[in-house]
């Protein structure tokens, strides 16, 4: 049977951290990864099922001092409905718009998406483009301690992160990007709805006249984690998106991705799609 001996639904971060320090707990947020994984036998429940859904501190989207904090329990639907997200983090908003179905979006949380650390996780790519930080909290020696990590460092492999077993992810922090910064997320699935990305691309930059500045590019589902692509960024930084720059970016992309073959796509097809779709996005940028 499930192996769960205890169910806990703490109302504060303190309590939750306490329970986690005791060890042997499975963190449960929206459950949209936990349940299918448990049913498929890929996740074994620990003795304690820790429902973090009632911890008010983990909710909410707010801005202070130029930093936007998004609580880990924020659902995909809440992100979609946030004017701040829609106005300032267009790529993140788009990733939510292409995320699963209404039912899943109502349950799925941002923290769950990050901790699940799927190479195809949809919010991860735009958050990389936005230079997001994750906030982790735990109570290793009796007092609540918090640390911040850049998202890029946090993700270490498929389903793997630097989160310690006694920690919760409490929030994501994003410094408001410079004025004029715009971002775009492209998800390539094989159907218009309810699909897991076969590849995804995040692109962000400030456009000064026709010149691109502060270029940030990330890819999903083409490496063990979603990745930033510094060489693609370098190929575009300070340049006009002309044919030569686009070609250089495409070549750099080919070097920077390491796709695998699985039931969704072959490595060859993923490479082709990164090339064709990045090209399409950059041509759109060129055409304004």
């Amino acid at each position, binding site marked *: *049977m499930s192996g769960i001996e205890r169910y806990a639904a703490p109302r504060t971060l303190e309590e939750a951290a306490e329970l986690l320090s005791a060890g042997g707990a499975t963190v449960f947020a929206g459950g949209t990864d936990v349940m*299918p994984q448990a*049913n*498929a036998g890929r996740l074994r429940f620990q003795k304690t099922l820790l429902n973090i859904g009632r911890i008010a501190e983990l909710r909410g989207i707010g801005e202070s001092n130029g930093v936007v904090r998004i609580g880990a329990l924020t659902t995909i639907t809440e992100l979609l409905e946030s004017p701040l997200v829609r106005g300032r983090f267009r790529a993140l908003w788009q990733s939510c718009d292409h995320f699963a179905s209404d039912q899943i979006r109502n349950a799925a949380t941002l923290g769950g998406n990050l901790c699940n650390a799927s190479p195809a996780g949809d919010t991860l790519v735009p958050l990389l483009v936005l230079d997001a930080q994750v906030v982790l909290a735990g109570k290793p020696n009796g007092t609540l301690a918090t640390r911040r990590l850049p998202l890029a460092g946090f993700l270490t492999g498929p389903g793997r992160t630097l989160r310690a077993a006694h920690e919760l992810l409490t929030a994501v922090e994003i410094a408001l990007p410079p004025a004029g910064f715009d971002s775009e997320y492209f998800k*390539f699935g*094989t*159907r*218009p*709805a*309810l*699909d*897991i990305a076969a590849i995804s691309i995040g692109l962000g930059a400030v456009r000064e006249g026709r010149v691109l500045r502060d270029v940030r590019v990330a890819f999903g589902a083409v490496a063990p984690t979603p990745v930033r692509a510094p060489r693609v960024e370098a190929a575009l930084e300070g340049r006009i998106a002309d044919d030569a720059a686009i070609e250089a970016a495409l070549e750099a992309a080919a070097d920077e991705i390491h796709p695998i073959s699985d*039931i*969704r*796509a*072959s490595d*060859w*097809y993923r490479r*082709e*799609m990164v090339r*064709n*779709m990045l090209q*399409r996005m950059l041509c759109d940028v060129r055409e304004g």
Partner: protein
Amino acid sequence: MGEAQKTVARETLIGKRIPKMDAPEKASGRTRYLHDIDLPGQLHAKILRSTQVHALIKSIDTGAAKRLPGVHAVITAADVPWQRPIGVAKDHLPLKTGRVRSLRDEVAAVAADSVEIAAAALALIRVEYEPLPPLTDPVEALQPGAPLIHPEPHGGDGGPQLKPGGPVAYTGKPDNVAMTFEYAQGDVAQGERESDAVVEDVFRLHYVTHCCMGVSGVIAEFDASGNLLLHSNTQVPFLHKREFAEMLGIDPGRVRIIQPPIGGGFGSKLDIYPFEPIAIFLARATGRPVKLVYTREEEFEASPTRQPVLLKLRSGCTRDGALTFRAVETLHDNGAYTSWGATTPFVMMQTVSSLYRVPHCKYRTRAVYTNNPYAGSFRGYGNLQATFAVEAHMDRLADAIGMDPLEFRLKNAQQPGEVTPQGMHFGTCGFKECLSTAAARSAYQRKRLEHASRQGDASPLKRGVGIASMLHVGGGAKIYPSDGCGTILKIDDFAHVTLITGASEIGQGSETVLAQLVCEELGLPLSSVTVVNNDTDITPWDVGVHASRTTFIAGNSAIGAAKKAKDKILAAAAAKSGRASGDLQLSGGFVVTPEGEKLFELGKFLRSLHFSDKADLVMTTFYYEPPSHHQDREFKGDVSAAYAWASQVAEVEVDTRTGIVKLLSITAAHDVGRVLNRLGIEGQIEGGVVMGQGYALTENLIVEGGAVKNPSFRDYKLVTAPEIPEMDISFIETMDGEGPQGAKGVGEAPAICVAAAVANAIHNATGVRITSLPFTPERVYRALRGKLEAPVWNVPA
């Protein structure tokens, strides 16, 4: 009888848009499916399946599972030495002994107080296997020295442990060939000599599965006298009744099957599967009702699939567009056991020999055993695969001789009155009307030329149109000794009709159409009919829901019973009124004269018959057997009392940067004989088109090394709402003389030629011909870049 209805004039119900009778119950969530039924004292069962693709079973230890509290029985083959192999080839033991041949194989089963306890007990069963070399490529199955899947049984290795003189006639097989089918007409060599153009291709058709919303399940129960009662989702209750009885060694009269409303069948519930006898064994072992319902994952992993087929087709025609010959060879992957689905060549060869007029024809199928999933029967029954190949060649031959593909098809299309070399008699045949209607309504000829001329344009988005057609049985199919259906009809004292039919309802709308046909005869509104169709102790015999037969066969049977009731009522009314019975009619709930004069209110009149000196009730029976014939040993014969035709034009948009094919529209023209319930038939065609679309574009059960890799709706991609194309549906009403009110069967037809039409449309859009399915973005993209390996025929002779 309400006041309002007394004044209703005689008005036909045929062709009207009539909502399904069961729709309010289903839409409001009141319908009680098998899942919702719980019997007092019921236990829950689960099956332990093999973890090995191919292995010998060395030992099974059920001790710990038996000791788990809440477990009532744990059984293996050793507990049911009297079990018998099931299936059309009797090669499939419900509980495996000695050897497992696929990951679906049932090794043990548990009945417990709850599903959770049953699952926990499964985890405690220890099975020791000795792996055998797996055989997962059907081509390999025919190579000399390939591992044998069903070797002749001998000590410890093989099929059932048979004692000489025992009851089971299962002997194993010296090779991996489960079934072969060969058909020939004329002389193919001569046809080839007479040809000006010859084309040959190899096609590969993939695994898909039914995805019924209602998964497989059964509740088995014995009463105190040892009679078996099954609540079952089966499509063929009367045949199963007999098979279960044989298995148990009891009189079939002691087996009763009740079918709760069934959440879809599409052929998946046509065979007996091991889970059904296993539930029966557990019910016998525990003396309690035992319920066994699949999980969705189990449904993907352990219910049947459509037949995967490798098909080689060679066809020819003359310069002026007359087909000369067609030669087909196919290899079917049966999986580990043989289901009815292995007999799909019956249907495939009809399309090959008789969709178009072809003088010379040769057909051969070998269905082979592998350690792959067990393929079964599925809406269209082989016809999707055959039509895919045949219609690709109609386009290719037309191209080869420079003729318009529509003209080429019209030139070779069957027409009414034709008797084909395979022995089919096409009484009514609206094929040419289907072709011209679908083509005209979609502007096929103009668009084909326009789209082809734009193949070289700079735009990455290409459009194309493609046409394809189909022939399928539309008046039953005489495969079993009888293809009939019985009806019992009673009209009570208040003119309420109870229609008791052998025909099963699996969501196709048969209840409504049968009630409609009866009302048409008796001049009553639909609300005066109750349909009883789900209990073998009550309903008369029927062969089952398959072969698009129910409206045709059960419809004729219902009409027969209704006519008898009408005759009886009118004869009595004539006697009472002193008129000739031929002068009277039933209309709007009255016995009326030709002038419309109301002589008797029907309810009142029936009561007067009942409560008279010669007290009598109106109860009739009718059995309809279609005037069709079994095929002879050469597969020749007129197996159906009518044949259905259809043509469909698909328009697609291909994104050459991604390979994504968007199906923009389907223009369909179907010869349905006659439209009975317009709403029902539109729904049937729309649903069938979407099923065909899934087969063409998105659905793919990925099987690698004998394992299903995508047992979930996340990864097994059914068509979603935004992908459904615009549909323009025309009905060609040929008024079949044998059909009920002129109708023919249409259940399978709409799914059959979609993939073929889409293939031709992709070719029109891009100039690239793809001979393997499904047209997923990656496959299409590869083909566009010349990087798709075309299927090859490397099958040993």
